[in-house]
């Protein structure tokens, strides 16, 4: 039982780290020598690294907000999980943890979908690692949420 608990906790921490990296790194789109979104458009040119703030279009701001929200909800669910671990009645289910984790996964999904649909179609610009991490974090957090629904506190 302790092993399952440890596994679930490690998975949660991994999801949290994925979300942090995906939100903080400005590498949702890369192309040649430039890496843009979510927060900065950075370009390496003439031996320098120039960054200017990302465009303040509404869809980019929506993606920023949804990523931050999913990060916050994943963090809340971690805190609630630790809290419920000690306070829950024997045999009870981790409902609040599951709700927060599933909400986090929904927000990441929305953010990734909005970015996919709205990012400008340019031949030379490909999706960067932060974008990939967001898409990886979505099913992981969904699975983690379902695990919390099924998990019961041991007698």
């Amino acid at each position, binding site marked *: 039982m302790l092993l399952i608990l440890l596994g679930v906790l490690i998975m949660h921490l991994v999801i949290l780290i994925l979300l942090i990296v995906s939100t903080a790194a400005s590498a949702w789109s890369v192309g040649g020598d430039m890496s843009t979104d979510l927060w900065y458009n950075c370009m390496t040119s003439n031996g320098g690294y120039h960054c200017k703030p990302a465009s303040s279009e509404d869809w980019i*701001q*929506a993606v*920023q*907000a949804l990523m931050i929200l999913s990060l916050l909800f994943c963090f809340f669910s971690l805190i609630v999980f630790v809290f*419920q671990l000690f306070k*829950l*009645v024997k045999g*009870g289910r981790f*409902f609040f943890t599951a709700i927060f984790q599933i909400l986090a996964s929904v927000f990441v999904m929305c953010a990734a979908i909005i970015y996919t649909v709205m990012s400008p179609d340019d031949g030379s610009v490909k999706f960067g690692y932060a974008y990939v991490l967001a898409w990886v974090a979505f099913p992981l957090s969904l699975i983690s949420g379902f695990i919390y629904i099924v998990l019961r506190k041991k007698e």
Partner: protein
Amino acid sequence: MLTFVALASVLLLGIVPEQTEGIAIYTGWERHALLGSDIRLSCSFFSWRMTSEDVTFSWTYRPDGSRDSISIFHYGGGVAYVDNKGPFRDRVEFVGNPSRRDGSILIKNLDYNDNGTFTCDAKNPPDIVGRPSSVRLLVFEKVPIQAGVITGAIIGVVLGLLVLIVVIYYLMRFLVARRVFSLSVSKHGKKKKEGSQARQGPVPPADPTKVKAAASEKKKQESRKDKK
């Protein structure tokens, strides 16, 4: 006595250098405006001296990409002189209040050619040493939304909803426990409670705190009886 002299000297030393600080002029940093609209460029100053009658304000304009400045407004000797020959003829109006140290101007019917830097220079004799301050004007066809406004709005709304839901949840539970609410649900709730005691805890977070709420209510009733 010595302390009084020390304090007085500190005060005097504190005041005197500041009188030579000069005049500090404040304008905005950047202004965004829609094509065809009017914009008020504000300019105010701070000076240790009282506002004199010979206070002057001058505005100069430097177009984007040009090195030359052209003077477009001057206020001096109680009279405001506006541009009557340059790019802003008949479009500048003085809307400031010199006695309140406000030297703002209003520019009407903006055009793309008005993109540039506007510099305000104010003088409050004898306080004339100061740095003019500049404000950059950007004329847009459609004013772009500032970075972070939508982000902040979405985050604020969702977190606010979360807090609201949590508060409502605890409020409902508190009210049902206090029997203020006599819902028909409470009958089902009672049946559920009796049924669940046979099994084990269907709604885990609720149970321990419901027990606590009932216990605290019992304590309150007992304390009321004691008071009586």
